[in-house]
């Protein structure tokens, strides 16, 4: 199964005419300078780090050494596409649970991937690149040496004799050209071991740098699929309840209130007038409560006008003043809009209830195929998504969509909530929310 592209190509006749041998050569050629540079960097970090540990400056240097695998792995994953382009490798790292460098560092140090990548970096710097340099050096040296024989004879050899790859002496031009021809014939023969070695190298890289295998677990896949189905069903159910309340109870209450209003026109005498006024008041109060309930279940403006309008609406209703900076170029999938909307609702509700903030801000933009929303306040901090707050539910809902909720809320504040969700645009939904005039 590994390296299907190159592996298959090696079995086909077209291999020699394809780009594969050149890709393999290029891969090995780039290995040497990269590996050498990496070795120098690692040595400098290790040396400077251990010497300076006495004065504490060395500790961050040693930490950098430990994390050196991260950028190397990123570069190597990209470089691997040269010889193994079929399945691009996923980043093997998790997103940290909170914002800020400390959380990031803790997550990275606890991950197996970080250590595997460090292992790869050490292997690459100490063993792989010298081997690869020898391989590609041999291929280029031997074939190049043979092919260039006539040329060397004409220049360095003065047209009389030349020593072919420092082994045999050749004395005449016909012999020299024969050697060159042999060199040309040798090239395709060398292309095969080169391809084999590259395939092996690709397999090794994948083994060390690919995402951990539990993501391929059938049960996990089935679980996440069923979770997605549950959330979709949950969403549909909310919409249905909202609609039923709107078309049923709300309309009936409006009609009731209207008839009570009409009855009050005719019944001017007490005690009937008083009783009717009271009943009318109750009906109106019920209507107000029902209206708020329906809005809490599913706000119509989110469906009709999209996320930006719906967030403006909650900002309007927030008792703490909210600054908005929303840059949302298009509509998103219903599930995404809904999850993000309720995340912002929960965040602003927490701002009003717990933060003692005097000001909050919501920023939203699309960045690299992800919707990135931040809610910040200038309050006292101390929010925690594990503490049985509504934030836990928000995080669950986002994770179903492959999204994340990051919370940074040191005690003393400020609190920053960040929502990240992959957001393919929804082309079938109205892009421009406002009607054409």
């Amino acid at each position: 199964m590994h390296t299907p592209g190159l592996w298959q190509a090696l079995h086909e006749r077209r291999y020699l005419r394809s780009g594969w041998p050149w890709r393999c050569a290029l891969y090995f050629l780039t290995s040497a300078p990269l590996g050498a540079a990496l070795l120098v960097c690692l040595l400098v970090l290790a040396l400077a780090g251990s010497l300076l540990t006495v004065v504490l400056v060395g500790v961050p240097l040693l930490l950098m050494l430990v994390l050196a695998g991260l950028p190397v792995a990123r570069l190597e994953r990209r470089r691997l596409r040269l010889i193994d382009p079929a399945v691009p490798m996923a980043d093997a790292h998790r997103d940290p649970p909170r914002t800020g460098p400390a959380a990031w560092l803790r997550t990275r140090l606890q991950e197996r991937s970080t250590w595997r990548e460090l292992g790869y970096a050490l292997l690459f710097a100490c063993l792989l690149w010298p081997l690869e340099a020898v391989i590609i050096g041999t291929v280029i040296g031997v074939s190049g040496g043979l092919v260039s024989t006539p040329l060397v004879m004409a220049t360095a050899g003065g047209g009389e004799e030349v020593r072919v790859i420092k082994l045999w002496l050749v004395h005449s031009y016909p012999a020299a050209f024969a050697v060159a021809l042999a060199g040309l014939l040798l090239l395709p023969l060398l292309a095969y071991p080169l391809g084999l070695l590259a395939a092996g190298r690709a397999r090794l890289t994948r083994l060390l740098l690919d995402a951990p295998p539990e993501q391929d677990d059938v049960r996990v896949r089935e679980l996440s699929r069923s979770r997605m189905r549950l959330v979709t069903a949950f969403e549909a159910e909310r919409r249905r309840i909202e609609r039923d309340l709107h078309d049923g109870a709300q309309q009936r209450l409006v009609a009731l209130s209207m008839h009570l209003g009409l009855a009050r026109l005719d019944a001017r005498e007490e005690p009937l007038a008083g009783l009717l006024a009271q009943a009318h008041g109750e009906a109106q109060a019920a209507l107000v409560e029902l209206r708020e309930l329906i809005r809490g279940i599913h706000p119509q403006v989110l469906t009709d006008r999209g996320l930006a309008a719906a967030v403006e609406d909650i900002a309007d209703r927030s008792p703490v003043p909210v600054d908005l900076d929303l840059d949302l170029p298009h509509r998103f999938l219903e599930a995404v809009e809904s999850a993000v909307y309720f995340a912002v609702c929960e965040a602003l509700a927490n701002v009003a209830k717990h933060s003692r903030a005097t000001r909050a801000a919501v920023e939203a933009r699309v960045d690299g195929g992800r919707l990135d929303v931040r809610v910040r306040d200038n309050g006292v901090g101390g929010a925690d998504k594990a503490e049985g707050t509504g934030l836990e539910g928000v995080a669950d809902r986002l994770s179903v969509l492959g999204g994340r909720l990051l919370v940074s809320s040191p005690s003393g504040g400020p609190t920053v909530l960040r929502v990240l969700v992959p957001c393919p645009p929804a082309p079938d939904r109205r892009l421009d929310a406002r009607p054409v005039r």
Partner: protein
Amino acid sequence: MVRIVLAEDSVLLREGLVGLVERFGHQVLATVGTADELTAAVAEHDPDIVVTDVRMPPGFSDEGLRAALRLREKNPGLPVLVLSQYVQRAYAEELLDSSNGTHVGYLLKERVGHVEEFVDALQRVAAGATVVDPEVVRQLLRHRRDPLATLSPREQEVLALMAEGRSNASVAAALHISEGTVSKHFGSILTKLDLTLSDATNRRVLAVLTYLRA
């Protein structure tokens, strides 16, 4: 007497509304249940006012409102009273932005319970007035609050010091920040106060005046 075309998909409410307005001596020319029928009925009857629900078939989203906006675009000055279930600034603003915002009303549906107020609103919209539900007005006002309130606390500090006649350098020194940061804050103040660049005005003076008037 006001001649009305009424669009409302709930039969119960439709009948109730017809009874209500007829009781006050107005005439319902046609009642319809979808946005398309509404457009056709207006073309046919040429009413004094259109009363429509926001949410209508087939999509049960905001078809009624969209139909009303289209009608007003085609027949400027056609009075339209929209009955809505939502305290929703966005919808009301769209309606008020159409045809100079006259001959238009946005009322919460529950207002029809206050029969006399409702009929009064109907007559006033037909006569050219603008009627917006008090709940919605409250939301509109909250949104269009004091422009200075949109400034961050730091920006307010910067503007306050500028109003004392200080230069950027002096503001920077007073707040222990760099002059570059002061310029950045000032740029953001201008944007938030909506003071655009023109040769005829000094934006710094305008920003300070806004501060002093507040």
